């Protein structure tokens, strides 16, 4: 990464009539990174990407591509390019013609165009025989690759993606996620990706931005967002999570929500020390919650009734209702399946190393 960001957004505002979609977005994207913007539908992420590629005009604010201000530049003059959710391939052209389209616009000679198109088909692991195939003869995954090849033929400074995998089935999506990440490292280009799927973001991205109601809740690397979310929204958005409303106690510990704390003074080192009377939310991911036998100990324990067991493929998910009525989610690997029947009384425990405290909420 270089010191100067490749893309800078300064206080970008977008309104539609009286509705404010983006109240003022600031963002720096580094050269060569895989940056993913994740958010629920209606969070403004699609609006944002349309501004970035030039399909909509900003109401206020500035977009800079290196040293060039581009927010007033029409889409067809920006050196960026987007892979559409619908892919937007040209159905009346062959695979080759689709890939060559941006080159043809630049009046690249036919032979060079063909060479480049075949090269790109290779890069995306499409057989060269696909060059003359019709788009309608290609499967979903193949179309995806054609759309990518077409975008790469444009040789953009930044390649944008607007949820291009959302229409595909699970297996294919998983394969293409890895291929995209691989493609990113092989091309060295800056990728800016939009999705509502946390998993997709986690697999591929260098950095993730969590978007909600037109602003970013948190921008960080995947591990940080997963393990140390800044607020409840991010915590809950990033997959299954258990949250406890807690209050600081006099001894420097914390209590609440039926939790029993046995921190014995090392709350400080785990980053969960609280001033007496301060409030916060304690977060623990389901994979860190254990079922305790009578002899086991843990930093935090709580009692409950085992409700249900759900098989999630490689993992098993358990739901435990605490005495206070809160439902706790526990996940175990299939090999660590526990031998308890629904209705049984259980003791759950987790350690201070695996929790994260969101203060003041």
């Amino acid at each position, binding site marked *: 990464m270089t010191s100067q960001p490749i893309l800078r957004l300064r206080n970008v505002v977008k309104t539609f009539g009286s509705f404010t979609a983006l109240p003022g977005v600031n963002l720096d994207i580094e050269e060569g990174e895989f940056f993913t913007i994740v958010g629920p539908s209606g969070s403004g992420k699609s609006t944002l990407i349309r501004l970035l590629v*030039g399909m909509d005009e900003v109401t206020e604010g500035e977009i800079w591509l290196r040293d060039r201000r581009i927010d007033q530049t029409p889409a067809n003059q920006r050196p960026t*390019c987007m892979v559409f959710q619908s892919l937007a391939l040209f159905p009346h052209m062959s695979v080759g013609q689709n890939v060559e*389209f941006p080159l043809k616009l630049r009046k690249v000679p036919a032979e060079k165009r063909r060479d480049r198109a075949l090269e790109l088909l290779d890069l995306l692991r499409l057989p060269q025989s696909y060059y003359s195939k019709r788009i309608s003869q290609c499967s979903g995954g193949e179309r995806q690759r054609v759309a990518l090849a077409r975008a790469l033929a444009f040789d953009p400074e930044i390649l944008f993606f607007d949820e291009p995998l959302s229409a595909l089935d699970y297996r294919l999506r998983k394969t293409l996620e890895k291929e995209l990440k691989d493609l990113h490292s092989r091309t060295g280009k800056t990728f800016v990706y939009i999705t509502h799927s946390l998993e997709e973001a986690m697999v591929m991205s260098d950095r993730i931005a969590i978007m909600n109601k037109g602003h970013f809740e948190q921008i960080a690397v995947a591990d940080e967002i997963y393990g140390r979310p800044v607020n409840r929204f991010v915590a809950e958005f990033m997959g299954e999570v258990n949250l406890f409303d807690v209050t600081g106690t006099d001894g420097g510990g914390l209590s609440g929500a039926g939790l029993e704390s046995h921190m014995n003074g090392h709350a400080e080192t785990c980053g969960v020390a609280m001033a007496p009377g301060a409030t916060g939310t304690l977060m623990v991911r389901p994979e860190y919650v254990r079922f305790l036998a009578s002899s086991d100990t843990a930093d935090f324990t709580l009692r409950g009734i085992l409700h249900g067991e759900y098989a999630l493929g490689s993992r098993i998910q358990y739901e435990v209702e605490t005495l206070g009525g809160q439902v706790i989610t526990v996940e175990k690997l299939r090999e660590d399946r526990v031998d308890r029947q629904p209705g049984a009384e259980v003791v759950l425990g987790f350690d201070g190393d695996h929790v994260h405290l969101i203060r003041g909420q």
Partner: protein
Amino acid sequence: MERHDRKLGLLSAMPLGLILVLSFLAPLVVVAVFSVMPAKVFTLAHMPDFSAYSVFFERGYYKSLLWSLAMALIATLALFLVCWPLAFGMAKVFGRFTLVLTVAVVMSLFVSENIRLFGWVLTLMKGGLFEGYFRSLTGIGFDSPLYNTGIIIFGLVYVYLPFMLFPLAQGISMVPDDTRQAAADLGASRWQILCQVELPLAAPGIMVGSLLTFVLAAGALAESKILGGQAVIVIADDIETAFTFGQNWPLGAALSMVLIVIIGGLALFGVSRIDLDAIMGRKR
């Protein structure tokens, strides 16, 4: 089971098939046979000869045909240019106003073509709506634009506008918005988008609209008679004269056959080149 189904399908198509054969094919056959009868006979029980067809060339009827085809071609091209922006607006821009426009255009079809054309005559003739008012206000008169080929083409454009407009709007609505956006994103100018994305993808609509207007305009009669004052004779005029005033049915039939073969061939060629299913909204 499948064979049984096919048989049932054939059987249920039979009544309609018979009606179609009787009402469309039979008259065509009669006309075709009449066209090879000797001049001025009124039955089909004669030795066939091709005298009517030789008359087509000897007496200059081919000139009428060329006029008809040429004016139809110009009218079709003009209609395409006029209707494309309008159809684009209807398909992509106007929103609910499209309905207003559609109703307005369709309403004009409720009034007979001849009456509408006479309306134009009253408007454009010397001493008519335009020239009359202009002269009484300014004292300066001008010649009527009526009675030449230009006004005939105007008439064709005016009368057949709906037949180009609606298929074209349908065709344009088949161009996905995101392909246009993608083309722009990949660096295409407005003009390049039009030529490389919109026109090819709207081709079925363009073809249907052009065929409809060309076929109708090539056989049109009222425009040249009413607006053109027979400044040129069109082929439909010759056919009518042969059947009525001329009392020469074989000649009329022969002229009709020439027109039918040319236009039918063109229509078949055009239809074979496009995906009619696509414009009817059916997916393959």
